[in-house]
């Protein structure tokens, strides 16, 4: 049993080993993808094992997998897999063009493995101390990925990313310490005072002041990782400058890892302080994020920054869902996590093809993608519609659920504000992307991938992801539904 989480988080490291052994992007990438498939399989097996039953736990909760963990592990593993397939095509193309030297290709896959492994590991622990250590490890592994293409702007973005996230994560550490203090009066060994299950069980005996402060610091600290406004300032630069498959992992997986950390603290705070406190904090940060994200979507010139601000907006929506609470709110927030992850992975991977074909991130210089690159164009158009929450895609269902949760929570004014901001986001987002996708092809354009294999490998993950979004929009599979309901039960 305990082997499964270890397997899920250590398998991606095979990608690192492959990177050390070979600088051939296709070989190293192939091994990385095989490892990602294994990791996803292990995560699914965990979900099956924990479904409705006892969590998989080691001593001290260093490894702890319950429904929430299994759900987040599957989400992260899906993004890692899609981005892994995309990485083969993208990195190989950049290597053939001479943009990435063999050493940088090696470094890419080494860091890819470390990044993926530490993300899966982060969501499979419920020891608050180890959680901090692993989330920081995710940051450190991904920082160099952001700057790997070696541009000055990339280095700058990486610097901003590492400095702001480290600052945030230190705040999260202080939050962890305060929660630990709040528990010092409890019986039991000090080892247990950091374990989530123990804290939840004894939530009522925790010291209120210490916990209140600790929770707030943890939300601010991990919120930096999630990209909640006003701690989001690293996010657009890093997402824009990273190689596109790495952007997909940052947006689709890393932000969710931060959300997982916050979720663990929310459960403790809800039990100890009553639901109102955490709910107010999350609603405040959530609405700030949605509002700023939506406003910054308007007339963005760099399309990767556009998608980055859309990620800020979506993280805000998830926070709002958690803030509304209740079965509907929690269910919607979790479902939105999965939908956001797949949707952003699809967009950023398709963006990789655009960057390769047009050698620019300026939306105004790109036009008529639908006729020049039919598959990418179609995926971009449908993917954009999906991400802004149009039916029949998954994000519509999850956003609708969150709106219903708001109505159930008797806050029609907030729901009205949320709907208004969503409409604004829709207009801002579609204005830019539709002008890229439709219209006459113009400007210089080159073949994005050197061979047929590359083009196929680039098309596979985006088509798979889009199909997944469509399925999630039409029907939530029974297995997923029971996993989500089980997670909601754990949280409540």
């Amino acid at each position, binding site marked *: 049993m305990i082997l499964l989480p270890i397997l899920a988080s250590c398998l991606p490291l095979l990608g690192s080993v492959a990177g050390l052994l070979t600088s051939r992007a296709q070989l190293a990438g192939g091994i990385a993808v095989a490892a990602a498939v294994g990791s996803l399989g292990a995560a699914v097996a965990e979900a099956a094992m924990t479904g409705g039953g006892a969590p998989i736990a080691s001593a*001290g909760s*260093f490894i702890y997998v319950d429904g929430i963990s299994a759900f987040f592990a599957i989400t992260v593993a899906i993004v890692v897999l899609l981005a892994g397939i995309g990485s083969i095509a993208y990195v190989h193309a950049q290597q053939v063009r001479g943009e990435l030297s063999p050493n940088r290709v090696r470094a890419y896959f080494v860091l890819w493995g470390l990044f993926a492994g530490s993300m899966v590991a982060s969501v499979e622990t419920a*020891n608050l*101390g*180890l959680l*901090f*250590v*692993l989330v*920081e*490890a995710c940051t*450190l592994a991904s*920082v*160099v990925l952001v*700057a790997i293409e070696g541009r*000055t*702007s990339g*280095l*700058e*973005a*990486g*610097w901003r990313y*590492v*400095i702001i996230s*480290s*600052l945030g994560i*230190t705040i999260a*550490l*202080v939050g962890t*310490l305060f929660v*630990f*203090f709040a528990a*010092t*009066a409890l019986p039991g*060994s*000090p*080892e247990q*005072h*950091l374990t989530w299950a123990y804290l939840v069980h004894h939530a009522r005996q925790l*010291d209120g*002041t*210490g916990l209140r402060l600790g929770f707030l610091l943890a939300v601010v600290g991990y919120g930096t990782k999630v990209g909640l406004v006003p701690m989001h300032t690293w996010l657009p*630069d890093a997402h*824009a*400058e990273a190689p596109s498959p790495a952007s997909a992992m940052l947006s689709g997986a890393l932000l969710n890892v931060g959300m997982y950390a916050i979720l663990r603290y929310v459960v403790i705070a809800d039990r100890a302080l009553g639901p109102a406190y955490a709910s107010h904090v999350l609603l405040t940060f959530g609405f700030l994020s949605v509002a700023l994200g939506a406003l910054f979507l308007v007339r*963005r*010139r*760099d399309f990767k*920054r556009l998608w980055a601000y859309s990620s800020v907006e979506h993280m805000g929506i998830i926070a709002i869902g958690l803030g509304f609470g209740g079965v509907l709110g929690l269910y919607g927030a979790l479902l939105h996590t999965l939908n956001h992850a797949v949707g952003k992975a699809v967009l950023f991977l398709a963006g990789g093809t655009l960057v390769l074909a047009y050698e620019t*991130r*300026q939306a105004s210089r790109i036009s008529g993608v639908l006729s020049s690159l039919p598959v990418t164009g179609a995926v971009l158009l449908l993917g954009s519609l999906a991400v802004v929450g149009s039916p029949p895609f998954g994000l519509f269902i999850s956003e609708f659920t969150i709106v219903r949760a708001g109505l159930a929570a008797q806050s029609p004014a907030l729901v009205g504000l949320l709907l208004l901001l969503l409409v604004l986001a829709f207009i801002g987002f579609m204005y830019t992307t539709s002008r890229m996708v439709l219209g006459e092809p113009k400007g210089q354009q080159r073949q994005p991938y050197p061979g047929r294999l590359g083009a196929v490998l680039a098309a596979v993950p985006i088509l798979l992801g889009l199909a997944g979004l469509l399925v999630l929009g039409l029907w939530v599979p029974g297995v997923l539904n029971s996993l989500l309901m089980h997670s909601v039960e754990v949280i409540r």
Partner: protein
Amino acid sequence: MQSLAVVSSGGLLLTLVAVLILLCALACLGSKLFDRYLRYYGLQSILLAVAAGTAAYLDHEPALWVLCALTLCLKGIAIPYAARRFLVRRLGLKRDTGVTVGLSVSLIIGAGLCAFAYLLLGSQPLAHGVISVSIIPISTSVILLGALMMVVRRHMVAQLVGWLIMENGAFLAAVTLTASFPFIVEAGIFFDVIAGVLIMLAMATGLAEQMATGGGLPARAPE
């Protein structure tokens, strides 16, 4: 001020060291020579190692001795040495020109932050089994001062030192108050810091070199 009362002679030593650590942070904030930043940071880390050693002695916790030795060697000696050698000397950095808020003003703000930390946390009820109560406000002050340094200084090295000071503040609280923190977690935190510093050093060097060869400051990332 019952909350500032010292519990034992070990607690007295710990409080004294903590105060010196706080003074180091203030000294850093009040200086604008890169050499000084690193010197004060090194001194602060050595004091942190003393604090860890005291806590280890008082709690009879062998794992803390390991952390004490690691702090002394890596944070006290290796990091300041590497930063001086690979950043300050090689790039010929002397005076920090990226000071956005004057030194005296930043010191006054810093003093205000320390007062804020005491007001907020000085009267906290005693946590269970704490050796020296004044550690909580002092380490919070150190964290705030580090954050202030990251905010008011624009230069990469100054931001790096600011973060390291913050980390020292958090570590001071972690080591002395929570000697019972699982060792694996404390060691993990420690190695995260080391890895972070290595990455930041590498990136800062790369950026500074590109600035030197590319001429002038790097352009802002294209919108």
